[in-house]
């Protein structure tokens, strides 16, 4: 029972992190129709920025998280301007390849600055919470709560604010958005910035649990792409459901079948779903 609950809390925390990263990716895909392979790089940078700010400025964890989020958001917006905007009319393969280049660049730069070995971020609230024999680490609880909060915030922004509506509008009809007077370039940059901030928040949340390494972006990249294909590219609910599905498949598959193959199980689930439903779970057939 305790073990089951622990696995459950692991899966929820992991799912929350996956969801935040995948949401940014799916928003960018919806608005720009670009599969942003550099997204994992932004996530990785978020972790390193948090690490650097914590160590360099000695500020509290939450402040470091916010600084990292803002920094990565700005960087993502810049990326949109410099790379994706000029490629908006080129074949998709081009944008995809450019994004891969950016990802490699980020990784190499981080490796240059911080080295290839793992970095540790201390848990802001160490220890565990014990409620009637049910045990959960504070950090996992924090991850779950914070990611749910971030998702609710995003939902509020998209559904209840006019600026948020412009993002949804643009993903449904780019020309329609232009015709009502929406500056699609600004929305594009904004969407990139949001995706960067979400990725950085996710990275800062999970960093105390996992170690920080340059390659963490590549791994995450593959997973969130799996998630948004699983959920249907561009679909917001699809990204969330896909994220938790993958997290549960990994955690419980790893626990009950073979820990070594946890990652394989996740991707195998993806292959299976796509073999049956090529357009993903949450996208209407094309």
């Amino acid at each position, binding site marked *: 029972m305790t073990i089951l609950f622990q696995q459950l809390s692991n899966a929820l925390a992991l799912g929350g992190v996956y969801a935040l990263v995948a949401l940014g990716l799916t928003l960018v895909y919806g608005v720009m129709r670009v599969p942003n392979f550099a997204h994992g790089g932004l996530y990785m940078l978020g972790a390193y920025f948090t690490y650097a700010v914590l160590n360099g400025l000695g500020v509290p964890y939450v402040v470091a998280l916010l600084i990292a989020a803002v920094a990565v958001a700005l960087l993502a917006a810049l990326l949109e301007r410099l790379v994706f905007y000029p490629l908006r009319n080129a074949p998709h393969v081009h944008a995809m390849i450019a994004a891969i280049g950016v990802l490699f660049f980020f990784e190499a730069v981080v490796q240059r600055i911080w080295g290839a070995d793992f970095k540790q971020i201390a848990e802001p609230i160490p220890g565990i919470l014990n409620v009637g024999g049910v045990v959960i680490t504070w950090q996992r609880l924090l991850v779950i709560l914070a990611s749910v909060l971030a998702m609710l915030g995003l939902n509020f922004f998209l559904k209840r604010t*006019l600026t948020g509506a412009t993002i*949804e*509008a643009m993903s*449904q009809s780019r020309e*329609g958005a*232009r*015709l*009502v*007077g929406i500056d699609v370039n600004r929305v594009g940059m904004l969407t990139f910035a949001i995706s960067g901030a979400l990725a950085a928040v996710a990275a800062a949340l999970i960093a105390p649990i996992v170690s920080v390494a340059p390659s963490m972006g590549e791994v995450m990249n593959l997973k969130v792409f799996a998630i948004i294909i699983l959920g249907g590219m561009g679909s917001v609910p699809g990204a969330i459901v896909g994220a938790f599905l993958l997290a549960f498949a990994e955690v419980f598959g790893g626990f009950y079948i073979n820990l070594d193959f946890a990652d394989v199980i996740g991707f195998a689930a993806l292959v299976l779903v796509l073999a049956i439903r090529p357009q993903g779970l949450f996208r209407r057939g094309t």
Partner: protein
Amino acid sequence: MLEVQRLSVNYGPFRALHDVDLTVQEGEIVVLLGANGAGKSTLFRTLSGLQRPSAGTATWRGVPLTGGRPEFNVARGVALCPEGRLLFPDLSVEKNLRLGAFVHRRDAAGTERELGRVYDLFPDLVGKRHAPAGSLSGGQQQMVAIARSLMARPQLLLLDEPSLGLAPLVVEQVFAAISRVNASGVSVLLAEQNAFAALGIAHRGYVLEGGRVSLQGSQEALLGDDRVRSAYLGV
């Protein structure tokens, strides 16, 4: 007024518009007739800023519309209700309409007022205000599209084939609505295949053929001209 002078548009090697001259005076309804492929939609896309011309000018009240920035044109009071509607299908009708007022986002009261006016104009939409726009019937979607362009409070409304695919009764409703909008002081440029319905409410008209203006004149003159008929039916 809208003043279009020697406007030409190329798509690659293909010239879709050829030296088009056209005006719309303040308060007028001008109809643009022509078969499919005659260049009507290209003209509208150019006037809205979606498409850049290769030559010529188009100005509204002296301000050029050809900078390739639709948001600028909307803010200057020129709104397009496009062919194919280009609604936001998964958003509710009301959200579509509110986004239509995006250029007036600092004037919340004005937007509420305008919302009331378009619901008056298209009462059918009131019951559907919370439904996704994509779930509506073709006629209702067309009403949403027109209403959305009105939310920008245009002084010049560009309507590209508003009767497309609509049942005759709905077409009459739509045309009555256009007349009312015009009566409130909005100038209208209207493209139509439905020549007689359009000429019924227009002051003047142009016939576009092969990207050129082949004929122009008053409502009466065009109604009586065989060439209008032949442009459509070839009889």
